[in-house]
């Protein structure tokens, strides 16, 4: 989920009138010094990272002077905590804390309602608090339409043995916290610890806020780069993959980079699944063969061939993987030849020299396997396609056997595509360009592009060359579904005049 940094969460709390310590965020020791000087009293320096237990890793330090704050920032910036590089530190006034509490809001799947939790003991995680002090934790479900009523919040606090003015103040704060969670559609919003200071005021000393990925589009003010769950910041390839997904609503493309900086022979496999459950199951099959995963990819929900092509290129950019494995549920509702064509285009362009095993079970699986296995005469790598009656474990064993055998064919890489003599072009919905070289098309006997075009938007002109039978604007709006048949089938069965350029912003610049 889209997690916010402590300082971002605290900014939202402040908007909703919850007090937070005075402070600011710094990206350099100098900035840390300046902020500490402005605060004008002893400060806390806190590494901004989405991890728990920062204090024990040297990620939270006290500083009595601006120079001490700069030194603490110096030590933290660039530090790696649980795979996360610290890029910012939060500098805050030290508080004179007399008591700690816990306050949180989560979405409870059992009750299908938000759950507000409060504990008169704070500091550690709520699970530990609940285990150690069950009588000091109280929770209540919230009516999603009416919101959290003040009296309910006060009763919640009362159940933990707190009365009087403190009960009233804490109740009010819980209502404010719920309003933050509801407004920003948080899967979880926690203040831990929530503290009372010597002068009787309540402050959010820490804040963890996770926004629902699916609602991020409604909260552009949060500036969330990638609305996806990660336990670390996204990699360059993950950002590239997310941009592909964000620009193409057809089907789902989910990408996690599982490894970086590995060598050929280290046993990393590019994993490219289809469907969440089937992918998880197939991933386990690869792991059982003793391989590690370079990627976890899911292209499903009837994605166009172009999306699968882009996914495959991003997988191949991860590093020198030892094999490429595709497998989903095995009995897919979607027409599987779209995925096959996407893979074929990517593997041809890469002139792939590592074994490929793809389980293409589901609708039109025979056609899909046939399309995929034609690769065998055109790239050095062995390519095997399988159907719904072949289990993920069997397919993973086949991949292991092919990697073990290490046999490659001697196939010359394709000659660079010559500049078209008589180009005919149109653009597609994701910014791709389809180009036919009518000089070559005129010599083509099969005219296979017209026949195989899934959307049936191509017709032959008077010279026997393919042209759109719809307007350029219609093609660009999505009538061309990027099925890739006019390139892939043309390459195998035509004169080679059809080509589709599908740019992946960031990929060509980022990874060679």
């Amino acid at each position, binding site marked *: 989920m889209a997690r916010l940094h402590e300082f971002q969460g605290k900014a939202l709390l402040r908007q909703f009138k919850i007090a937070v310590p005075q402070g600011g965020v710094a990206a350099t020791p100098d900035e840390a010094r300046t902020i500490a000087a402005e605060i004008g009293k002893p400060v806390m320096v806190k590494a901004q990272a989405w991890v728990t237990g920062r204090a024990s890793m040297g990620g939270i330090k006290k500083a009595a002077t601006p120079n001490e704050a700069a030194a603490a920032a110096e030590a933290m910036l660039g530090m790696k905590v649980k795979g996360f590089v610290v890029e910012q530190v939060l500098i805050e006034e030290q508080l004179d804390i007399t008591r700690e509490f816990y306050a949180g809001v989560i979405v409870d799947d059992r009750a299908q*309602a938000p759950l507000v939790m409060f504990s008169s003991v704070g500091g550690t995680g709520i699970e530990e608090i609940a285990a150690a002090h069950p009588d000091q934790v109280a929770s209540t479900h919230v009516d999603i339409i009416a919101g959290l009523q003040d009296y309910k919040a006060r009763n919640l606090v009362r159940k933990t043995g707190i009365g009087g003015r403190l009960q009233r103040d804490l109740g009010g704060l819980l209502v404010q916290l719920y309003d933050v969670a*509801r407004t920003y559609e948080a899967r979880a919003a926690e203040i831990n610890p929530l503290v009372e200071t010597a002068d009787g005021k309540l402050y959010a000393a820490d804040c963890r806020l996770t926004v629902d*990925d699916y609602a991020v589009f409604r909260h552009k003010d949060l500036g969330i780069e990638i609305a996806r769950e*990660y336990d670390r910041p996204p990699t360059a390839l993950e950002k590239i993959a997310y941009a592909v997904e964000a620009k193409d609503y057809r089907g789902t493309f989910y990408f996690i980079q599982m490894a970086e900086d590995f060598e050929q022979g280290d046993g990393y496999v590019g994993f490219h699944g289809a469907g969440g*459950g089937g992918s*998880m199951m197939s991933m386990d099959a690869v792991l059982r063969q003793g391989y590690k995963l370079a990627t976890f990819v*899911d292209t499903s929900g009837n994605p166009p061939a172009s999306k699968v092509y882009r996914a495959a290129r991003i997988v191949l950019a991860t590093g020198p993987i030892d094999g490429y494995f595709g497998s989903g549920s095995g*009995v897919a509702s979607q027409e599987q030849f779209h995925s096959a064509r996407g893979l074929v285009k990517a593997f041809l362009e890469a002139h792939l020299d590592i074994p490929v095993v793809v389980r293409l079970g589901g609708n039109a699986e025979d056609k899909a396997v046939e399309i995929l296995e034609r690769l065998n005469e055109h790239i050095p790598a062995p390519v095997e396609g399988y159907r719904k009656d072949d289990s993920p474990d069997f397919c993973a064993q086949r991949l292991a056997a092919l990697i073990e055998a290490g046999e490659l064919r001697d196939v010359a890489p394709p000659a660079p595509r010559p500049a078209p003599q008589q180009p005919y072009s149109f653009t597609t919905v994701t910014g791709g360009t389809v180009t036919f070289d009518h000089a070559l098309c005129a010599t083509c006997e099969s005219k296979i592009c017209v026949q195989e075009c899934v959307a049936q938007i191509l017709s032959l002109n008077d010279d026997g060359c393919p042209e759109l039978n719809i307007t350029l604007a219609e093609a660009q709006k999505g009538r061309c579904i990027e099925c890739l048949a006019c390139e892939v089938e043309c390459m195998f069965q035509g004169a080679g005049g059809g080509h589709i350029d599908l740019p992946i912003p960031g990929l060509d610049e980022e990874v060679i």
Partner: protein
Amino acid sequence: MSILIDQTKRVLVQGITGREGIARTQLMVGYGTHVVAGVTPGKGGQAVEGIPVFDTVEEAWEQAGPIDISVLFIPAPLVRSAALEAIDAGVKLLVIVPDRVPIYDVLVIAKRAKETGARFVGPNTLGVLSPDKAVLGMIGGRAASARSWFFPGPVGISSRSGGITSSMAYYLAQEGIGATTLVHVGGDAVVGLPHPEVVKLFEHDPETKAVVMFGEIGTSQEEMVADLIEEGAFTKPLVAYIGGKAAKSGTRFSHAGAIVEGGRGTYEGKVERLREVGATVVEQFMDLPAATKEVLARIGA
């Protein structure tokens, strides 16, 4: 018998004129679903597959007659409004197909459904299918495929993964085991009819002799099924597989619901809890058909 859907239920398709709406209406009509009307605001008066299209659900109800079920093929940001429209018009079962519906929108739909006695499958569901009777959503993709992959029999199927819903039913069918109904509960963290609700429906279906369940890490659904078994509210044999054993805590693998947070919803926790109450939990997905066969033989079904 079957649960949720059969050929007698009168079905509405919301978003019938869109890319998915048209394709899946063909599947549903081709498989035997009694689709009586479609709705797309602004496109009233058109027809899809010979089915009349109306501007609102209320109008569809008035013109085409009472509606038992609505299937939604609507962009995620518009789902809340479309679902409330169907519920307010009096529809008692919704199948919400789209992915990426904001979770607080689902909570609002759930609240309204509870108040009016309506239920919903999904969001992020492939749908529901009763073999040789009818289908809601997109299970099977094409009517001809659905007909060749699934056949009627004694097992109820409940799954948190769409693709796995089809593949479980298919691999069981290959071993000669047919199904009463296939339910994809949906891949999200909050769904209208989670596993425990589905197994309760199967409990009351006389033709369902056993239930086969595909669970996943994350959420409390499988633990709640175990609670039902313990309380005696679900008494039929249960065969289960839990996906996501290798997944790391805090990282989700494509299903929004499949994430382990704060030690809740772990693979080990679910397997242990289900076994404790006597369910059969297999380690390998492909062991499901054999295990189911054994269970059916034991109860003489």
